C-alpha cells in the first residue's frame, strides 16, 4: 500500500497538528532554560495560545466543510472530517482550555513539572481528537491509548501522595484490561469481516449480524471496551476511586473530554447498522446496561458524602442517560434526532461537570484536601455568588427546567420514546427522580445549615480562573437552557453531514 497525502489532508487535521507542535514548546523552553522552574508564560501561556490557535484552525475546517458541503476524508480515508468531528474538536479544545484554567490554580499540580503536565494535557487532547475523527478501528484504538496513557501519567503527577498514586495505578491496570478486551473484539471483527475500516464493516454488518456469531462476539467485546471508558455499570468500578484520587482539574478533564469523544466513537461504531431492531441481542444488552447504569449510579450517589465521589457516581448515571440516546440513535428511523440528542446531552453534561468540579476545586486549600458535603454548610452566607452558581449547576444536573440539563434529558428521552423504548425511559425518569435527592442535598447544606462554629471561610480566594469557570458554567447552563432550541438546531445541522 502506498502512503501518500496532500496539503488538503494536513489542513483537515491541522487542529491536532497545531496542538502537538504547541505541546512541545513548554518542554523545549524548559530545557533551554536550564531545567529551571518555568515561568507562568512558558507553560501555561504557550499551551493556552496553542489551544486558541487550534480552535482557530478548527473553525477554518468548519468553514471549509460548509463551503464544500458535507464530510471529507483525510489520510487514505482513515480520518473523517464531518460535523461530528468538528463538534468533537471544538468540544475537546474548550474542555482542554478549562482543564488548563483549573490546573493552573490547582495546588496539587502547581510548581515543578507543570510544563510536562501541559505537554501531556495537549497530547491527551490530540488523542481525543483522533478518537473522534477516526474512521478505522485501529486508529480509534491508538487514539484511546494515546489519551489514556497521558491521563495515567497526569494523575500520577499530583503532589498528593496516596490517593493519586492509587488511582493512577488502578486506572492503568483496569484500563489496560479493558483495552485488551477492546482489541480482542476488534480482532474478532477483523476475523469476521476482513477489515477494520468502518465503512467496510458497515457494508456487511446488516447481513452478518444475523448469521455470523463471531461477528456478534466481536461487536460485544468492542462495545465493552468502549463503555469501560465512559463508565457504564458493571465496568464502572474504577470511576469513583480514580475520580476521587485525581487532581480535580484532571477529573474534570477526563470526566468530560474522554466521555465526549468515546461517545462520538461509539456513535460512529453503532451507525455501522449492526443494530436492526430493539429486540436484537446487541440492543438488548445495551438497554440493560443503560438501565443498570442509571439505577446504580444514581442510587449509590445518594450515599456519598465526599463531593468528588458523589459527582463521580453522578457522572456514571449521566453516561447511562447518554447511552439511552445512543441506543435510540443506533436504531433505524430517527437517527438524526438520536445523534443530535446524544451530542446535545454531551455538551450540557460537559459544561455542568466542569462547573461542578470547578466548585470542588475552589474548596481545595491544600494539595490533599478532601471536600466533604459538610464543608458546604453556610456557603450561601459566606459566598452567595458561588452558592448560587453551584445551585444553578446542580439544578441543571438534576434536569430541572429551564436549565440546559432539563433539555438534554428531554431530547434524549423523547428520541428514545420515538423509537418505542418505553421501559428504559421509565427507568431513566425513576432514577432521575432519585438523583434529585443528592443534587439538592448540597443546596440544603449551603442555604439551610449554619456553618459549624469556628469554621473558617472555606473557599480559596486566589483561584481566579477557577472562579471564572464556575460562573461561566452556571451562566451557560441557564442561558443555553433558555436558548436550547438554537443549540439543538446547530447540532442538528452538523449531524446532517453524517447521513
Amino acid at each position: 500500500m502506498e502512503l501518500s497525502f496532500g496539503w488538503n489532508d494536513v489542513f483537515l487535521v491541522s487542529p491536532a497538528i497545531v496542538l502537538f507542535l504547541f505541546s512541545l514548546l513548554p518542554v523545549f523552553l524548559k530545557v533551554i532554560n536550564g531545567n529551571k522552574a518555568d515561568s507562568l508564560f512558558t507553560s501555561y501561556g504557550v499551551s493556552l495560545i496553542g489551544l486558541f490557535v487550534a480552535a482557530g484552525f478548527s473553525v477554518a475546517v468548519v468553514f471549509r466543510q460548509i463551503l464544500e458541503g458535507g464530510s471529507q476524508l483525510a489520510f487514505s480515508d482513515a480520518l473523517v472530517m464531518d460535523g461530528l468531528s468538528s463538534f468533537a474538536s471544538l468540544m475537546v479544545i474548550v474542555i482542554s482550555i478549562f482543564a488548563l484554567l483549573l490546573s493552573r490554580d490547582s495546588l496539587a499540580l502547581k510548581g515543578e513539572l507543570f510544563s510536562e503536565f501541559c505537554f501531556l494535557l495537549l497530547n491527551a487532547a490530540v488523542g481525543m481528537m483522533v478518537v473522534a475523527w477516526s474512521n478505522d478501528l485501529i486508529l480509534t484504538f491508538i487514539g484511546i491509548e494515546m489519551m489514556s496513557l497521558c491521563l495515567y501519567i497526569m494523575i500520577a503527577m499530583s503532589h498528593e501522595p496516596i490517593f493519586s498514586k492509587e488511582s493512577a495505578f488502578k486506572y492503568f491496570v483496569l484500563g489496560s484490561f479493558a483495552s485488551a478486551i477492546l482489541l480482542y473484539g476488534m480482532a474478532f471483527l477483523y476475523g469476521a469481516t476482513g477489515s477494520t475500516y468502518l465503512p467496510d464493516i458497515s457494508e456487511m454488518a446488516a447481513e452478518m449480524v444475523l448469521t455470523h456469531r463471531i461477528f456478534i462476539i466481536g461487536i460485544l467485546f468492542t462495545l465493552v471496551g468502549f463503555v469501560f471508558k465512559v463508565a457504564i455499570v458493571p465496568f464502572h468500578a474504577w470511576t469513583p476511586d480514580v475520580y476521587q484520587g485525581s487532581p480535580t482539574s484532571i477529573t474534570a478533564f477526563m470526566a468530560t473530554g474522554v466521555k465526549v469523544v468515546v461517545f462520538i466513537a461509539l456513535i460512529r461504531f453503532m451507525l455501522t447498522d449492526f443494530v436492526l431492531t430493539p429486540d436484537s441481542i446487541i440492543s438488548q444488552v445495551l438497554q440493560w446496561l443503560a438501565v443498570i447504569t442509571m439505577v446504580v449510579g444514581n442510587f449509590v450517589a445518594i450515599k456519598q458524602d465526599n463531593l468528588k465521589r458523589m459527582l463521580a457516581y453522578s457522572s456514571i448515571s449521566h453516561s447511562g442517560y447518554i447511552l439511552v440516546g445512543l441506543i435510540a440513535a443506533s436504531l433505524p428511523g430517527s437517527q438524526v434526532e438520536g445523534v443530535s440528542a446524544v451530542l446535545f446531552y454531551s455538551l450540557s453534561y460537559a459544561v455542568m461537570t466542569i462547573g461542578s468540579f470547578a466548585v470542588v476545586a475552589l474548596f481545595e486549600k491544600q494539595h490533599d484536601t478532601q471536600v466533604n458535603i459538610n464543608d458546604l454548610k453556610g456557603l450561601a452566607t459566606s459566598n452567595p455568588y458561588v452558592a448560587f452558581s453551584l445551585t444553578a449547576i446542580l439544578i441543571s444536573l438534576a434536569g430541572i427546567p429551564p436549565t440546559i440539563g432539563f433539555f438534554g434529558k428531554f431530547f434524549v428521552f423523547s428520541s428514545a420514546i420515538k423509537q418505542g423504548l418505553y421501559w428504559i425511559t421509565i427507568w431513566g425518569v425513576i432514577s432521575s427522580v432519585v438523583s434529585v435527592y443528592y443534587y439538592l442535598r448540597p443546596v440544603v447544606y449551603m442555604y439551610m445549615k449554619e456553618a459549624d462554629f469556628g469554621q473558617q471561610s472555606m473557599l480559596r480566594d486566589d483561584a481566579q480562573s477557577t472562579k471564572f469557570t464556575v460562573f461561566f458554567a452556571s451562566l451557560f447552563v441557564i442561558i443555553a437552557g433558555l436558548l436550547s432550541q438554537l443549540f439543538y438546531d446547530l447540532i442538528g445541522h452538523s449531524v446532517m453531514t453524517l447521513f
Partner: protein
Amino acid sequence: MEQTLISILILTPLVGFFINGLRWKSENCKLAGTIATSAIFISFIAAVTLVAKLIQLPEGERQFTAHFFEWIHVGSFQANAAFLVDQISAVMILIITGVGALIHLFSMGYMSHDKRPAKYFSYLNFFIFNMLLLVLGDNLLVMFVGWEGVGLASYLLIGFWFHDPAKASAGMKAFITNRIGDAGFLLGIFTLFFYFGTVEFGELAARMPAEAETLWSGPITLACLFLFIGAMGKSAQIPLYVWLPDAMAGPTPVSALIHAATMVTAGVYMIVRMNEVFILAPNAMMVIAVFGALTAFFAASIGMTQWDIKKVLAYSTVSQLGYMFLGVGVGAFMPALFHLMTHAFFKALMFLGSGSVIHAMHEEQDIRKMGGLKKYMPITHITFLIGWLAIIGMPPFSGFFSKDEILYYSFVSPHGSSFLWLIGVAGAIMTAFYMTRLMALVFWGKSRVPSDVHPHESPATMTIPLIVLGVLSAVAGFIGIPHAIGDLFGHLPNVLEHWLDPRLVNLDVEHSKALEFGLMGISVALAGISAAFAYDSYTKKQERIDKFTSKFPKLYRAVEGKYFVDEFYFGKIINPLISLSKDLWVYVDVNFIDKITYWISDFVRSAADAFKSTQNGNMQSYAMYITLGVVVILSFIF
C-alpha cells in the same frame, strides 16, 4: 408619541423600583427618596401631557390605545399587553401619579429615621407601577396582573416592619383576605370569557346584549357578582373589610397612598370601567348598593368608638368606600368616580396629617394621649381642618359635592330607594360625629400629651404635600358642581360629568331641583348638628358621652369590639379550617402518605447500600466485575 408617553408613564416607576431595589441595603433616605419621587414625578408629567392631548381631541374620539405585544394567544383566547387611556383612566392616572408623587415626597420626611429607606421606596414605586397597570390595562387580564401586583406591594408594605409579629401578621391577613376576593375576580373573568369570548373591555361592551338581564343566574349577573367579590376584597367591603383596619400597621404614608387614596378604590374603578356590563345586571347592582350602604353605615359606627387615630381613619375609609359602592350600585358612576377622587385628596390629606401628628408625638397613636395640638402644629391643624370639613360634607368643600351627589342619586335613581338614602344619611351623621370627635381629641381642647413628649411641626417635605392636598381637598369639588347648584350661580358647568359622559351609561332620572336641594339640606343640616354635638361633647362635656355609653353597655362594647367580626371569623371559619387541616395532616399525610414515601426511600437507601458494598476499593474485585459483565453479556448469545 402617545405610545412613548404611555411607556414613560408606566415604566418610570418600574425603573425607580429596579434602581432602589438593587441598592436596597442603602440607608441614604434622601437619595432613595429623590430617585423614587422623581420617578413618580416624571410619570405624573407624562400623565398630565397625555390628558392634555386627550382634551385636544374631539369629544367622541378621546382615547389612546397602546398595543405593546401579544401576550397570550391560545386557541380563541387572546390577551394583549395593551393599554387604554380614556376619560375614566385619565382621572385615575392623574390621581395615582399626582397624589402618589406627593406621598413619596412626604415619605422622605417620614421615613428619614428608618433603616431601610431604599427598600421602602422601591416597594412604593413597585406599587405605583402595578396600580398603573391596573387602571390602564385594556383587558381584564392586564388589569388582573396589576390587581395582584398592588396586592403584593400592599402586603410587602403593611409588613414593612416585619420584625414586629403583629405587623407581619397584619400583612398576611391583608394578603389572604385579598386572595379570597381575587378568587372571585378570576371566576368573574372566566365567566365573562366563557359566555362572551373576550376579556377586552371594548369588545365586552360591544358584545353585551341590549336588554338588561333579570335572572339571578344569568351570565352577566353571575360575572358581575363574582367581580364584586373581587372588589369586596380589594376595596374592603362587608364581609371582607377586616384587613383594612389592621393594614394600618404599615408606615402611615403607605396607609395614605395604598389604603386610602388608590389601591382600595380599585374595585370602584373596575366597576366604573365596566359600567356597560354592570348596568345590564340590575340584581347585581342591587347587591352592590346594599353592601355599599351597609358598609358605609357599620364602618362609620365602629369609627365612633376607636381610640387609635389611624384606626378611626381606617374605618372612615371603609365607610367612604361604602359610599362609592352605594354610588356605583345605584348606577351613579360619575358621582362614584367623583367621590373616589375627592376622597383620594382629603383622605390622603388626613392620613398624612395623622402621620405628621404621629411623627410629632414620637409614634404615639392613641388619641386619648393627644389634645391641644393646634398650637404646636399649625399647618397640620389647618390642613386637617380642611380635610375634616371635606369629609363631613360641608359646602363648599370637595366632599360635599361628591357625597351629596351619591346620596341624591341613591334616592332618585331607578336602582336606588329611599331606604338606601336613609342608611347613607345615617352614615353621614356618624361620619360627622367621629371626625369631629377626632379633631376635638387631637387638636382642640386641653392637652393630654405626656410631659416627656414635645410635639413639633413637621419638616417641609411633610408639610408641602399637606398644603397641596389641603388646597385640592378644598377646591376639587368645583369640577363636579351639581346642576341644581350650578344653575343657582348662573350655569356653572359640571366639568367632570361632561368629561366622563361619553364613557358612562346614562340613567333615566327626572331631576327635580326642589328635591335635590331638600335632600342636600337635610343631610348637611344633620351632619352639622352631629358635628356640633360632638364638638360640644368632646371639648367641654365629656361626661355626657360617658353617661350615654354606660346606659347601653352591651351596645357600646359590641361597637367598640368592631361587632366581634374578627372573633366570629376565627371561631367559625378559620379555626375549624385549621383543625380540619391538622386532622388531614395527621391522619392522611403523616400516617398514610408519608409512611408510603418513607417505605420507598428506605428501600432506595438499602438498595444503595447493597450497591455501595461492591465498591470495596479492591482492584481485583473491580477486574472481576468486568469479567463477570463480559460473561453475562456473552451468555445472551449462547
